[in-house]
């Protein structure tokens, strides 16, 4: 490459909000479901129906706007975006153009070159469309309107990104903030977070923008990074060879690692936006905004610092815990339940992680912390029992596996009792067993006495077997050693 090309990127990020009901009707927003079972006359746009704005969407949008350091629009309103498509039953999307709920903000990201501010142009509320299911057999297409009317936020950045790394950091930051706010699960694979990438290049040092292309709906952060690299290279090659970039929408094929043109600017639609007459203007009071602000959570970076200073966790462990808000909240609930910080962190990061890894492999899928459905009080009790030597660690891990598998909250105390997992503290019975094992294993005893200390392991195992595991191996080892040294 002879010249030094700088990439310039702006992002449009769509986030599905996890409100209970849809933005303009009371249908559920639950993902999945048989086609056309999560809909009603309103979200399928039947003639004569009218939208009723869900107040929870406003709350979530204001919180998101505050997290993005935006100004909140005090007199916000909806507009209609008109276009024909079978997944859009009204043939217009209720969105916001003229007075979006939030504007003029920024997101601060960490990059290898240090912190950087990405400016937010605006953020608006809108309804999602349905999806089309194409028949595998005939030339037929069926609309599924379940997703119609699920609330979305669209966050439009300024063209402030200069690398794929910055884009990834920005998306991670938004995902972190929105999951911490509890307003979206931000799962790119399920489509609850989607990004459109606007990319152009220019010679480093110049200020004019080049002609940009848009790549829509790429479904993972790593795919976005690859798409950016691919498109950057394509544009560089074009300009190097004396060609011109055409303003168009391109589709990124992540399998073939290349993009193809979808629609050029000449064929761009005129959406004929105008104010939605069915929904009056929404007045957002200063008190309302203050109330939302007062309920903003502690975000991951602050929480991580606090975990390190308050609980003495390593940076690595604290980082792992705060990656998920529910998990980090659960960690503190375990401590509240009486488990130590060190043990709680260890159980979540090591034991729970391996249990979930194994269970996900069994079902050939993925598991989130929330899928484990753990009860803090019960798990805290379990940790205390194991760390206190009352239950074997391996038994404890098995109990944890049962806790994760169980649909209901498992009563750990009851489970330990009914499965006879409590370690015996009856030293009399233990002494008896130790004596019996020593008598029955002359070879191992003589090996130990001749200096092969490893032989003790065999003897501990024999005692454990004799006691059906209901004992504390450390204690058994101590007693064996004491007996053999006599």
């Amino acid at each position, binding site marked *: 490459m002879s010249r030094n090309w700088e990439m310039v990127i702006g992002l449009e990020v769509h986030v599905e909000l996890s409100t209970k009901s849809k933005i303009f009707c009371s249908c559920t927003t639950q993902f999945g479901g048989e086609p056309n079972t999560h809909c009603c*006359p309103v979200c399928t746009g039947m003639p004569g129906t009218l939208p009723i704005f869900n107040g929870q969407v406003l709350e979530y949008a204001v919180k998101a706007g505050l997290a993005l350091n935006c100004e909140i629009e005090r007199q916000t309103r909806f507009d209609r975006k008109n276009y024909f498509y079978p997944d859009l039953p009204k*043939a217009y999307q209720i969105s916001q153009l003229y007075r979006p709920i939030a504007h003029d903000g920024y997101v601060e990201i960490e990059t290898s070159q240090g912190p950087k501010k990405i400016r937010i142009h605006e953020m608006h509320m809108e309804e999602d469309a349905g999806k089309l299911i194409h028949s595998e057999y005939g030339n037929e297409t069926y609309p599924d309107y379940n997703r119609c009317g699920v609330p979305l936020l669209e966050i439009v950045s300024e063209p402030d990104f200069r690398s794929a790394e910055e884009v990834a950091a920005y998306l991670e930051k938004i995902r972190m903030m929105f999951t911490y706010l509890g307003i979206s699960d931000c799962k790119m694979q399920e489509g609850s977070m989607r990004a459109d990438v606007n990319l152009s290049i220019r010679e480093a040092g110049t200020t004019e923008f080049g002609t940009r292309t848009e790549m829509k709906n790429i479904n993972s952060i790593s795919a976005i990074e690859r798409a950016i690299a691919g498109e950057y290279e394509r544009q560089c090659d074009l300009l190097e060879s004396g060609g011109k970039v055409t303003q168009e929408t391109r589709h990124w094929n992540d399998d073939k690692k290349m993009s193809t043109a979808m629609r050029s600017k000449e064929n761009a639609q005129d959406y*004929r*936006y105008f104010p939605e007459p*069915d929904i009056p203007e929404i007045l957002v009071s200063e008190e309302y905004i203050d109330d939302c602000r007062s309920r903003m959570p502690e975000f991951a970076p602050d929480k991580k610092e606090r975990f390190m200073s308050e609980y003495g966790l390593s940076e690595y462990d604290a980082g792992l815990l705060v990656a998920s808000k529910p998990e980090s909240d659960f960690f503190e609930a375990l401590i509240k339940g009486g488990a130590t910080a060190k043990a709680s962190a260890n159980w979540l990061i090591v034991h729970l992680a391996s249990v979930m890894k194994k269970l996900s492999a069994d079902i050939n899928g993925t598991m989130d912390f929330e899928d484990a459905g753990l009860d803090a009080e019960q798990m805290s009790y379990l940790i205390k029992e194991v760390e206190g030597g009352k239950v074997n660690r391996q038994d404890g891990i098995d109990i944890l596996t049962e806790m994760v598998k169980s649909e209901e909250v498992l009563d750990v105390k009851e489970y330990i009792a009914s499965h006879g997992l409590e370690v015996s503290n009856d030293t009399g019975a233990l002494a008896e067993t130790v004596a019996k094992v020593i008598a029955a294993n002359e070879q191992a005893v003589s090996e130990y006495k001749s200096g092969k200390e490893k032989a003790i392991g065999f003897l501990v195992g024999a005692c454990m077997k004799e006691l059906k595991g209901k004992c504390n191996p450390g204690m058994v080892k101590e007693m064996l050693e004491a007996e053999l040294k006599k």
Partner: protein
Amino acid sequence: MELMKLTALELGEKIKAKEISVREALDAVSAAKEKTDAKVNAYTDFDKELSDKEADRIQKLIDAGDSKSPLAGVPIGIKDNISTKGMLTTCASKILTGYKPAFDATAVSKVRDAGMVVTGKLNMDEFAMGSTSETSVYGPVKNPWDTGKVPGGSSGGAAAAVAACEAVVTLGSDTGGSIRQPASYCGVTGFKPSYGAVSRYGLIAYASSLDQIGPIAKDVRDCAAVMDVISGGDVNDSTSNAAFASGAEGVNENGFLASLNGDVKGLKVGVPAECFGEGVDPKVEESVKGMIKELESAGAVAVPISLDFIRFAVPTYYIIATAEASSNLSRFDGVKYGYRAKEADSIDDLFINSRSEGFGGEVKKRIMLGTFVLSSGYYDAYYNKALKMKQMIMDGFAGAFGNCDVIVCPTAPMTAPKIGESLSDPMKMYLSDIFTVSLNLAGLPGLSVPCGFDAQNMPIGAQIIGPAGGDLKVLNAGHAFQLATDHHKKFPEVG
């Protein structure tokens, strides 16, 4: 057929007193329709089986003393753009062929709750776009006073059915005069409530910010009684306004009907200079002025006012209404319900062919106009400017009501034209909306009451306009006039 000459309230009284049954009242409507409708073409659908069942259910309620409304048992016809569960609702358009809603419009469920019997659907201009009721897929509605003339529109079927005594009372919709103007042409009483007074849920939208459901009846008392039933805030319509319903200012706790007293002593009646003189039929002017005299002799005071902004009303209306319509009517695309073109090789073809074949000419014209005024590059020059004009018209009316309580003017500058005459000169038709459209732009209540006849014995209507929320003032002035006159008690010989 004397039963059919009774008002809704008179009929309700007879039903309550057990002088007649609900079935007898319904049978009377059905017989009148059989006898007359071939000449008037007011109905698009009449579901006798469904309404018979409904009549029997309501009779039981009445017999058990469980029905309080004075309209219980009274049959009511519904304009074809208002959703009726399980009954055809087609907006008189081919594109909604066979469409039966899965739900009732709020206004319809309210009339059912009051014990009224929904009889059938009433003819109209396709999608309520017109002033003559000639653009229906079911053919034109005829004026019962002269079947060679139009009944007005778009609620032509709803007005003609009442005039021809083949409906007792009806629900129409009014976007730019669609209740008041046909009421005027047909010699009946029609009321367009303040915007928000009646829920629009279930009314298939023409222009969302202007549409309003209202009653067409034989007199003002019937209109007030229907308003008691259908008005009120609605959780399904965020533009509905509970403050404009029963219990609003001046309306006593028993509602509009109970609040009508016909007392207009000291009522200041604004007489706008712009609504008389050039362009207005002299006979129309004379009759409307006669009405003002009548109100004066009942104690009202006439005050000359000016509505100079009214000349902007028609262009403003046709920009806003068509813009909203172009969006509202986009959902009729052949995908989900109604008419679907048979020949289509792609999804775009399906949209284009279904809409090209399913919509009539006037509807297409307005969709195109609305699409144009919203187009990028034209939005500010047309739509945005129209919104500013709308605000100016609202402010203008607010100023006018600083000097008077109600305003009286002709509902339409002429009486009903001949069938075919208007469609050949659409500009003339659009301009004839001049006195009605400004109310929709400003969200004001308006009532049309019969106030005389022209030389050809065609009815003339006078319009009474009130400030937003002043629905009772308007109804009361009309009631005062009807107490003193009998124009509203004349019936045509349908021939």
